[in-house]
């Protein structure tokens, strides 16, 4: 089934284009101790996505939190091909944007990051949606929804 087209406009924080599936969480997320960089699975037992794979997904969550060591784990996931393919936040902290910029700089992997949308992305996007995301223009478009 296809619904009317949903287009959200925000701020592109890190360039790149993505098309794929969405994983949504209402909780803040810390990649440090939050993701297994060998598999891309969420391992934080306190998190509602524990056990879910973020690999090549558009990961939608309110904001990041945690250690200045965050890019360590994130880039290990990038190197293993297990990192999220795109990130959409209410507000992206510099730690998250840095992860994406470093992935591009050192591993030639583009991970678009978009925040500051006209709506709260976790209210509109649903896990399983197929989306197209541009980190350059800051546009998030739902392509299809079951």
């Amino acid at each position, binding site marked *: 089934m296809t619904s009317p087209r949903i287009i959200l406009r925000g701020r592109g*924080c*890190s360039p790149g284009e993505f098309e794929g599936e969405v994983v949504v969480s209402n909780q803040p997320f810390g990649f440090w*101790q939050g993701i297994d*960089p060998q598999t891309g699975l969420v391992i*934080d*037992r*306190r998190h509602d996505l524990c056990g879910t794979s973020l690999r090549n997904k558009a990961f939608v969550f309110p904001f990041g*939190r*945690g*250690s*200045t*060591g*965050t*890019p*360590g*784990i994130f*880039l*290990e996931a*990038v*190197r293993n091909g297990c990192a999220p393919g795109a990130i959409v936040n209410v507000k*992206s*902290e*510099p*730690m998250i*944007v*840095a*992860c994406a*910029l*470093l992935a591009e*700089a*050192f*591993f030639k992997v583009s991970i678009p990051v978009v925040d500051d949308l006209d709506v709260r992305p976790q209210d509109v996007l649903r896990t399983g949606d197929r989306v197209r995301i541009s980190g350059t223009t800051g546009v998030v478009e739902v392509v299809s929804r079951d």
Partner: protein
Amino acid sequence: MRLTDEEQRILGGVFGEPQRISLNVLVKLGQAYGADSMVEIASAHVVGSSYQIAGEAGIAIYTQLLEQGARVKVRTTSDPGSIDFARWRELKTPPEYAERQIKIAELLDQMGVIPTWTCTPYTTFNVPRFGEDLGWSESSAVVFANSVLGARTNRLAAYVDLCAALVGRVPRFGLHLPECRRGEVLFELDPDLSANFDDHHFPALGYLVGQVTGDRIPVILGLRQATFDQLKAFGAAAAASGSVALYHMVGITPEARTLDEALGGRQPSERHVVGKREIARIMEQMSTGQGGAVDVVGVGCPHASIDQMRRYATLLRGKRVHTGVQLWICTNTVVEEMARRMGYVETIEQAGAMLMVGTCHNNCPLGAWGFRRLATDSGKFAYYTPTTVGTECLFTSTEACLEAAVTGRVERP
């Protein structure tokens, strides 16, 4: 963003790939956060020195940068590693793990990073001055440099810190701007609490403040005095439970000579009163599980100062750590050497405690090593233990921690 001629040439690759790549990351980060220009920094501190953080990706990055001729441009110090370089065999660190950490040490050495292996670089070789711009990571060091020393740094991410070191610049936004350093959330201490404020209340208050403040700037009113180590403990806890990068303590920290100065002449956006009840409640939260037999006690997070080493030695003189309990004291090589000369190391080791030098228990898989209950006097360690380390954790005073190591039992404070 306005870039200087030199910065344009760096981006054009005139000074080589490491500088070009690094400045490109920093400029893009600055553009995302509204920086108008780059600012030169006096020093950098890098957190990707630990194999636990950097992993194989870090080794790949450092190797690439070195092949391209990377060399730090400003004084740059290293955060703790994942092993004690002198004692890793004794501490039963797997050799293949130690070998990767040693590899990182070699790579950073070749880039000109000063191998301090400490989260308290501000006590030794990397001492910032008031108003200086820095490119630092390590949340506990960032909060100390900003709050206690009045230097200016954002909480840089791992590798962004190295990019800053390689070009000697950071994008000018956030805490580099005086107008972004004003206090926002006010915590007023109840007179009853401030009259009876104990040493272990500093990390507890920091933990509470971090939880409430998140990434905003807290102002603490009502403390009469604080030592260097108490400020260190407070900030480390606030930076772990929240992402506090700067705090003001009225009458104590340099940008808070008065409440009005701390708030930058504005009203706070929130006010909280903290009394004995609030402190008791946060200390409840900082401990998971009940008291009982303890098998590991960790102090020296952030790294112990010479004053703290003296205190541990005094408390341990003539005593013996209980069979089956490990007492770990984390510090850096400089403090270790001074403590050795002062005779403290001998007293500490005679009591059966173990020094962990240039590394830290935050980097150790204590749960995987079969420990079940840990006692600590550190708000930061208490925050990370349940997830990172995977043991039960009891937060209590330094005295009670060392007492627990001797008796083998710990009670909830």
